[in-house]
């Protein structure tokens, strides 16, 4: 409830003609030297990636945010993420990235997955919520999908047994299931969320998803203030399209998380607006939340009509992660104001603006 009303209240606070007093009166007290500019690795990526990361750079500059970007070019058709990029992320601890295209069936493993494994970014977080002013079929959606990012179906361990028969291994370990469950409950605790739902298919995959559920149940007992329940993945998708307001935080293994996050993003306004990121014990990489459409297609690229909102909101998440809450608030408010005004919206939101027009509107709306 607080989360949903905050953006609306904030809009009122920041209008110059408003006479409502802001309710946040206790200020954020930084440590001396916190204002020094922080380096953030920037990977523009493929397709519409450079366009939307360019948008973020422009907005950051306009806000004079204390971040500077170290740009590295990585493309989906390289075999490995270059070592210098990994070193840079390890040094800076934070990265902002556009989508990396994965060639289909080409024998090259996805660079997105490689990056997550190398840096052990074991939790992927996607926040799907209704933006005020953006009409969707479903209202009252405010779901955070926390997805295990390193194992499960995406282990990449496949082989051909005999010609015409292929096997793929799905790995579930207690170690990874426990840490993702711990992250999910800790997230819920720190963000005042009331319920955590585990998504599984343990009626069919009894041992694998059974192990995942066992870990979730163990961690749930340590957080008695947070409600915990379990739902089978096919029922979950059905409930998402009919009654999405019942979900709060969802914790899932790798593959189901992908589907659930994209479905939730679709019902709440589309993947062009949902922020997200991947986080591990030491590093964090922020990118467009849901994976569908993060590289875009040729037409979007030519006409430069990609939606920068998702990456802008993810960069607001990044600013908060870097402990610059006031910049994060201002950016988020500006973006929400632009969306709710409705004049500058890209095609996926029903409008016809270009990326640059939306960026200019956001810059104008920052105060």
């Amino acid at each position: 409830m607080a989360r949903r009303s905050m953006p609306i209240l904030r809009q009122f606070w920041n209008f110059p003609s408003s006479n409502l007093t802001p309710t946040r009166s206790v200020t954020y007290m930084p440590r001396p030297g916190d204002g020094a500019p922080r380096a953030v690795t920037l990977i523009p990526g493929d397709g519409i990636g450079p366009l939307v990361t360019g948008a973020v750079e422009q907005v950051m500059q306009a806000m004079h945010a204390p971040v500077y970007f170290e740009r590295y070019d990585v493309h989906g058709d390289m075999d490995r993420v270059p070592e210098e990029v990994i070193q840079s992320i390890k040094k800076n601890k934070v990265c902002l990235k556009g989508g990396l295209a994965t060639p289909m069936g080409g024998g090259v493993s996805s660079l997105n997955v490689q990056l997550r494994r190398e840096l052990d970014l074991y939790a992927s977080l996607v926040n799907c919520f209704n933006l005020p002013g953006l009409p969707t079929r479903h209202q009252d959606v405010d779901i955070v999908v926390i997805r295990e990012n390193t194992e499960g179906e995406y282990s990449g361990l496949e082989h051909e047994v005999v010609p015409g028969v292929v096997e793929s291994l799905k790995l579930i370990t207690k170690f990874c299931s426990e840490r993702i469950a711990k992250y999910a409950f800790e997230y819920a605790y720190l963000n005042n969320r009331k319920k955590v739902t585990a998504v599984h298919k343990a009626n069919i995959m009894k041992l694998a998803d059974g192990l995942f559920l066992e870990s979730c149940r163990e961690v749930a007992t340590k957080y008695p203030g947070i409600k915990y329940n379990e739902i089978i993945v096919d029922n979950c998708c059905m409930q998402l399209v009919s009654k999405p307001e019942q979900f709060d935080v969802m914790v899932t293994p790798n593959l189901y998380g992908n589907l659930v996050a994209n479905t939730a993003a679709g019902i709440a306004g589309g993947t062009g607006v949902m922020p997200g990121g991947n986080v591990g014990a030491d590093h964090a990489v922020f990118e467009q939340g849901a994976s569908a459409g993060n590289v875009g297609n040729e037409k979007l690229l030519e006409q430069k009509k990609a939606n920068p909102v998702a990456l802008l909101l993810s960069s607001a998440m990044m600013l908060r992660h870097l402990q610059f809450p006031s910049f994060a608030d201002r950016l988020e408010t500006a973006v929400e104001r632009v969306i709710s005004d409705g004049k500058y919206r890209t095609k996926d939101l029903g409008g016809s603006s270009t990326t640059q027009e939306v960026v200019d509107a956001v810059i104008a709306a920052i105060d």
Partner: protein
Amino acid sequence: MATQLLRRRVTQILSHGSPNPISLPRPFSSATDTIRATLFPGDGIGPEIAESVKQVFRTAEVPIEWEEHYVGDQVDPRTQSFLTWESLESVRRNRVGLKGPMATPIGKGHRSLNLTLRKELNLYANVRPCYSLPGYKTRYDDVNLITIRENTEGEYSGLEHQVVRGVVESLKIITRQASLRVAEYAFHYAKTHGRERVSAIHKANIMQKTDGLFLKCCREVAEKYPEITYEEVVIDNCCMMLVKNPALFDVLVMPNLYGDIISDLCAGLIGGLGLTPSCNIGEGGIALAEAVHGSAPDIAGKNMANPTALLLSSVSMLRHLNLHDKADRIQDAILNTIAEGKYRTADLGGTSTTTDFTKAICDHL
């Protein structure tokens, strides 16, 4: 005029031609001979809704003789489950059946009922037509798609083991034979029902060899049907497109796990499992229509159940038997009853009982 348009659209969707191009000739082709069909009423609300179906068929004078079989209370060693060998033989003999919801008995030492049916009858494709019911408003009004799911392998092979404590492996198996079989069925279905596009759903960018093999098989079959557009869609894109704009899809063909999730998602788009028909196709032209909802033990015996799913599934069974005029009549009656809105069961927001709803349908015939 509207009824005709509705009929045409709905006929396209629900009619089943001969599903397997190499199926054996069926002994029944004239509408006057009585056809024997196996009926599994199931548990919970099963018997009530099966009674609805029987009543509607009687009123419509459908020449079907039901052979009822119930789930036993002892494990039959020949089938290793609660379903007896006689029940399975009956389906194999009659080649067509209708199944109500069955509750899975808990415990070990026996196979689940659905698994038994699937393995013994070699039911390799699950077909679920999903289309918005006129008169029952959901958030999505223009859904008109069919999901065809491979039913035998994939992630649901059940081959799991614990490697060491705390590490579990589960095998996902994709074979050329099963993928070709389901792709053939999908394209054949699309052709016989006048559908224009078949989309294969996959995650081959990550699972390159397994889903890659599935896609290769689909592509091979697509070449044999040049008049049908074929496309491949990654599953996360598919989920997103389905919830934003379900009209983009026509026929979807998928491996097991994705099929399970997507077909339930599509059922959710049109109003839930209580309204979705489903049909399982087996080798040799066997068709087992079933209601996919649960047995709802909490409303069993209270005359509150919604028989729509089982009725629509029985209609698809009739089309499989080429009894198209009867199928059309019953289907129109069901859709008109729901569209009118006077008689609706509790799950659709009304207050009618099962018997009232059934009577209303019979009146519409």
